[in-house]
């Protein structure tokens, strides 16, 4: 039995085809979220990669901020519930999930059997989210995916004292004007995101294993800084950005 999970976020659309609730057959990721063609394109590509059509799908679950606008979904599920399912699928011993997406950050605590036992979401603020990294990357004219590599070359991590994206933007510009090296500045930016989200995570008891999900999980600079702040290893999977879609496909399997 094939089930389909689609995660329509604020900046990307992700799809997963799951077979019998155990095997990821295909996945896709398109830049562009709610209100773009990306959800449709991601769906088409995931089906094509799996070599199946709509008719072969027994159930579809949608998650992410665009979940309620997905007409062909049988279920709409909150992204926290899906990230919990998806992360537990990839890391069966995970107890704490830190999800940093395009416009928000969430921390989910799981019980030993993988059930969600608590969660927290960030305030309505871009600080500590992927948006913060996007804004800073634009100022520095560095592609987001190159930030990790540059951060690793840092000699002295610069301090971004403000937690507000708008104020931090002018702070970064001032530091550039003062001749701070780009790698040091980028490491400081990653550190700022990690510090902000770590303070949210500490409101929930951090129980290892800890993993990160969402697009920002791909940034090793943020992951390393997060490990420093939380004092624990952060598990990472190349599929971290797909945890929501995997969870949605699992949910559809459980309900179909």
């Amino acid at each position, binding site marked *: 039995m094939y089930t389909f999970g689609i995660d329509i976020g604020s900046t990307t659309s992700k799809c997963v085809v799951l077979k019998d609730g155990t095997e990821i057959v295909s996945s896709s990721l398109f830049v562009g979220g709610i209100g773009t063609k990306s959800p449709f394109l991601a769906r088409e590509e995931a089906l094509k990669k799996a070599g199946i059509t709509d008719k072969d799908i027994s159930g579809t679950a949608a998650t992410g901020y665009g979940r309620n606008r997905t007409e062909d979904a049988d279920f709409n599920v909150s*992204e926290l*519930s899906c990230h919990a399912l998806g992360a537990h699928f990839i890391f069966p011993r995970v107890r704490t999930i830190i999800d940093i997406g395009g416009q928000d950050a969430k921390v989910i605590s799981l019980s030993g059997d993988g059930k969600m036992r608590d969660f927290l979401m960030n305030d309505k603020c871009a600080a500590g989210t992927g948006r913060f990294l996007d804004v800073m990357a634009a100022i520095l004219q560095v592609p987001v995916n190159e930030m990790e590599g540059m951060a690793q070359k840092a000699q002295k991590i610069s301090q971004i004292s403000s937690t507000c994206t708008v104020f931090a933007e002018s702070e970064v510009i001032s530091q550039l004007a003062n001749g701070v090296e780009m790698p040091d500045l980028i490491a400081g930016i990653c550190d700022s995101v990690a510090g902000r989200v770590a303070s949210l995570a500490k409101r929930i008891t951090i129980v290892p294993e800890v993993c990160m999900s969402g697009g920002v999980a791909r940034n090793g600079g943020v992951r390393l800084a997060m490990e420093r702040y939380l004092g624990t290893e952060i598990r990472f999977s190349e599929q971290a950005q797909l945890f929501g879609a995997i969870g949605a496909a699992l949910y559809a399997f459980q309900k179909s």
Partner: protein
Amino acid sequence: MSVKEILGRFHEIAADPKAMKDKYLSEGREIVLVNYYTPEEIVHSMGAVPMGAWGADVKINEAKKYFPTFICSIVQSAVELGMKGEYAGAKAFIIPSLCDSLKVMGQNWKVAVPSIKFIPMTYPQNRKPEYGAQFTKAGYERVISELEELGLPRFSDEKLKASLSVYEEHNRVMNEVSELMASHPEISNQERSDVFKSAFFMLKEEHTALVKELINALKEQKPGTDKLKIMTSGIICDAPDILKILDENGLQIVCDDVCTETRQYRASYKEKATALDSLVSKFCDMDQDTLLYDADKTRIDYIVEKAKKTGAKGVLLLLTKFCDPEEFDAPMIRKACEKAGLSVNIIEIDRQMVNYEQARTSIETFRDLLNG
């Protein structure tokens, strides 16, 4: 009237307080604005209509010139409404000194809305000792004197005694209807909110009569199918979008610790030498409240016990943005609830919310959490 018709009447009143204000004005009644624990019984006893002024979900433009950016939107929106003439015709606004934002509000009101007199009600920090009661009484006497100066009929302790009876009965029916609504899941969270909110815009004897009609009609109605029971806590819980999201997710508010809801009806009057002393005793006996000094933080245990008693599976904490007293209590509430096996969800709200998607995600996840 049927339950639906009565609830429809509550909704009309809660959704359009200006219509109620205009109705009372057309009847030749004086209006005095009140909010957090204002001694509205005094206003009532002097023949005026005490009308709640808790702001509203409006875009705040004009009032911003009087306030810093990071301040409670309840007080900001109340001043905005005042500046835009929504309270036109009201004689005065009694503003208490119970939090830093309210203190600022009083001063700003005086300048921003000069047509409606600002009457301060300064409460003591320590209300339990005898000197706290004396301080409170002196504050009430000042309010009385300012109302008399405005031309309201002279204060009489005898008339206050009669008003206390009206308010005592109102307290009783509000507590009764609150419990009764908890056993009727077919009543939506919006309808429940309307019952509480409308109380601020009606004379209490009129509201009591309508609530009694609801109680009688509900007793004849078979309760609907059970929903997931939750408790709410915070300063306000009247945003239609939040209430709708709760309804859509099958969550039923069975009890609350909300300032504009049952917190208003917890304390009653003690028998004292004068009615004014009885009124003072009510304020001094109030407890478990964010805005009232409480060194032992009894509010925390109250929430846990109330939730357990009513069968609520979780507590939804609606944290008013920039409300320091509420924010200080939040971590303690979370810990106490966790210890008691209750799930907690914290949502930040204010009077200027236009996008509820983050709140929707949070509430949906809360429902999933409660469903196990």
